[in-house]
C-alpha cells in the first residue's frame, strides 16, 4: 500500500513522462534496476490501474527511443470544477435519496461533490437496478468507443449512441452495420469488449429518450397497422387511459378502441391480458390469428 501510494504521488508530481528505469531510480521506491525490481514496478502500475487510475504511456524519441514513457496527467486524475451551486449539490443529494440504486456508485460520487447533510425521507422512491456491465456500456457511449458482444447468438459490432431505462429494463441503442437498433442489456451474451475511444460520431440530434417507443406494441420492425378492439364497460375507462383512441362509446358503456400495432405478439399478449373484457374486431388477420391461437390452446 505504501509503495503504491508513493508511486502515485511521484507520478502525479512529475512534470514530464518518464521511462521505467528513470522511475525506478528517481522515485527511491525500488532497488537497482533488475528483473525483480522491474516486476515489482509492473505490479504496482497494474495495482494503480486496477484502482481506476489512468497511466498514460507513449514511446520515447531521441535518447529514449524504444522505451515506454509513463505519466499521470492532472486532467486524467482530478475531477474538474463542475461549477455546481449549493442548491444544485443539494438537488443531486435529494435525487440520490429518491432513487435507490442497487449499488453505492452514486453515493461514492456524491462524496466528491456534496456535503452529505441528512435529508428528510422522500414520499416517493424509485428502485433502479443497474444491469451487469451497464457502466462499461455507458463508458463506451460517452467515449464513443465501439462495443463488441454476442446478441441472439450473433457476434455484433455496435456504435453505441445511448442507454435507456424503460419498463424496468435497460436498453442500449446504437448502429449495427448502419441499422439503428435497441439491444436489451440483459440479453447481451458473454463479455462486452470496447474498441478505441473516439471511434465514431453519434448523430447530432440523438436523444436516448426518443430511441424507443414507450408503447411495447409499437416496438417492432413490422409495418404499423391499426387494430380495433371492443372493451367492455368494466374495463373501458382503465384501458382507454393507457392505450389507443376511443372511436365509439356504446350505450352499455363498452367502447371501440383503435390501437396502433407494430408488434403483433405484444398486441396478443396485451389483448389476452384483458381476458374476458376485450375482443379484437379487426383487421381480419389479427382476428383470425387470435381465434387460431385460442383454438389451439382449447384443443390441447
Amino acid at each position, binding site marked *: 500500500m505504501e509503495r503504491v501510494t508513493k508511486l502515485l504521488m511521484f507520478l502525479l508530481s512529475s512534470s514530464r513522462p518518464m521511462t521505467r528505469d528513470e522511475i525506478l531510480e528517481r522515485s527511491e521506491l525500488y532497488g537497482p534496476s533488475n528483473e525483480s525490481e522491474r516486476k515489482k514496478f509492473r505490479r504496482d502500475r497494474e495495482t494503480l490501474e486496477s484502482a481506476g487510475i489512468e497511466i498514460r504511456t507513449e514511446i520515447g524519441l531521441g535518447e529514449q527511443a524504444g522505451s515506454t514513457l509513463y505519466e499521470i496527467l492532472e486532467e486524467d486524475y482530478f475531477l474538474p470544477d463542475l461549477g455546481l451551486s449549493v442548491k444544485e449539490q443539494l438537488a443531486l443529494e435529494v*435525487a440520490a435519496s429518491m432513487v435507490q440504486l442497487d449499488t453505492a456508485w452514486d453515493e461514492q460520487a456524491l462524496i466528491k461533490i456534496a456535503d452529505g447533510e441528512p435529508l428528510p425521507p422522500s414520499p416517493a422512491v424509485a428502485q433502479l437496478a443497474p444491469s451487469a456491465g451497464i457502466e462499461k456500456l455507458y463508458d463506451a457511449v460517452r467515449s464513443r468507443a465501439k462495443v463488441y458482444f454476442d446478441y441472439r447468438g450473433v457476434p455484433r459490432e455496435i456504435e453505441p449512441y445511448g442507454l435507456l431505462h*424503460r419498463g424496468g429494463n435497460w436498453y442500449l441503442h446504437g448502429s449495427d452495420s448502419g441499422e439503428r437498433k435497441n439491444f436489451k442489456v440483459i440479453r447481451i451474451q458473454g463479455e462486452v469488449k470496447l474498441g478505441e475511444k473516439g471511434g465514431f460520431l453519434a448523430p447530432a440530434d440523438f436523444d436516448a429518450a426518443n430511441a424507443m417507443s414507450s408503447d411495447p406494441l409499437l416496438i417492432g420492425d413490422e409495418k404499423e397497422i391499426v387494430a380495433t378492439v371492443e372493451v367492455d364497460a368494466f374495463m373501458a375507462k382503465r384501458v382507454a387511459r393507457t392505450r389507443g383512441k376511443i372511436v365509439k362509446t356504446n350505450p352499455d358503456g363498452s367502447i371501440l378502441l383503435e390501437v396502433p400495432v407494430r408488434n403483433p405478439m405484444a398486441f396478443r399478449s396485451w389483448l389476452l391480458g384483458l381476458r374476458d373484457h376485450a375482443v379484437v374486431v379487426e383487421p381480419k388477420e389479427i382476428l383470425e390469428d387470435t381465434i387460431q391461437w*385460442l383454438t389451439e390452446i382449447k384443443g390441447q
Partner: protein
Amino acid sequence: MVRETVEDRLPRILAMVPWIVERNGAYIEEVAARFNLNEEQVAAELLAVQLYEIPPYGPDNMLGIIVDEDGWVGVEAPLFTRARRFSPQEGFGLLATGKAALGIPGADSDGALATAIEKLEKVIGQRTSLAIDLNAPDIFEQLQIATEARNRLQIDYYSKYRDEISTRVVDPFELVARDGRWYLRAYCLVAKGHRTFRVDRIDNVLETGETHESVDPGHEAFVPGSDSMIVKIAVSNDNAWILEAYPLESVTENDDELIISIAVTGKMFLETLMLRLGSSARLIDDGGYGNVAAEAASRLLSKYSR
C-alpha cells in the same frame, strides 16, 4: 474476515484525503459517517499512512495524516487537494439517479436538478445519451401530495387477479417505483393489513379529510404472503421471454423445452399466463387449478362466435 486488497483500500484513502483536506480536518466519526465505515476501519486506514514522502521531498511532496486523542484528523496533502475524477461506475450512478429523479413529479420544483445534470453531463458524458423513463401515471401527484401530508384516502382499486374493483380506505406510506411500475405502500383499513397497490390500477382517489398516524413498518411487512401455489410448466424455447418477465422459482432444460416452476397467486394469474404462452406450453404440475388454459380459451372463443 475477508482481507482487503490494495485495490480495495487505495480508492478509499484517495477519496478520504481530499474530503478531509477540503474541510481543514474532521473527526473520525464524521469521516466514518460520510464513507459508510465504522470508526475503527477509518482509524486503521488513516493511521497506516502517518507520513509518506517522495523525492525531491519538502512540503509539496508529502502526505501526512495525524489523528489526535480526541479523534480529530489533520491532513497535509498538497498533491491531493482535489477529489479524483468520477470512475465510470460513479459517473453512471450519479447521472442515472439524477435523471431518474427528474422523472418523479415534483422532484425538481426549482429546476436545480436539471441544471446540475446539465453541468454533470458536460464532464461525465454526452448530453441526451442516457434516459430513464419512470412513467409516472397521471394520478401520481395526487397520491404523492397525500402521502407526504399523511392524508387518509379512499381509492377504487382494480385487482387483476380477482378481476374486481373494490373501494379501500388507506393510510399511504410511500410510493415506490420498481421494475418499471409505481406502487403505493399503505395500510388498508378495509383489509386491516399492509398492502401494496399498483398505481396504474388505482382510480377515483378521494381525500377523506382525515390525517393518519399509522406507522410505516418498512418494506419487509409488504412481502407477498405464502398463499401462492407453485406450478410447473413446460415451455418451448420460443417462450423464453418468460425467463425475464416473471420471477421464477426454478428453471431446468429438458431437450427442446424449459421446465419452469413459478409461484402463482390465483387461478386468474395462471389462466392469463397460459393464454399468453399459447398451445406450445403445458402444465406439468397444475397446483390443483386444473386445465385452466383450455377452459379460458374456450370461454374467450365463445365471445368471438357471437
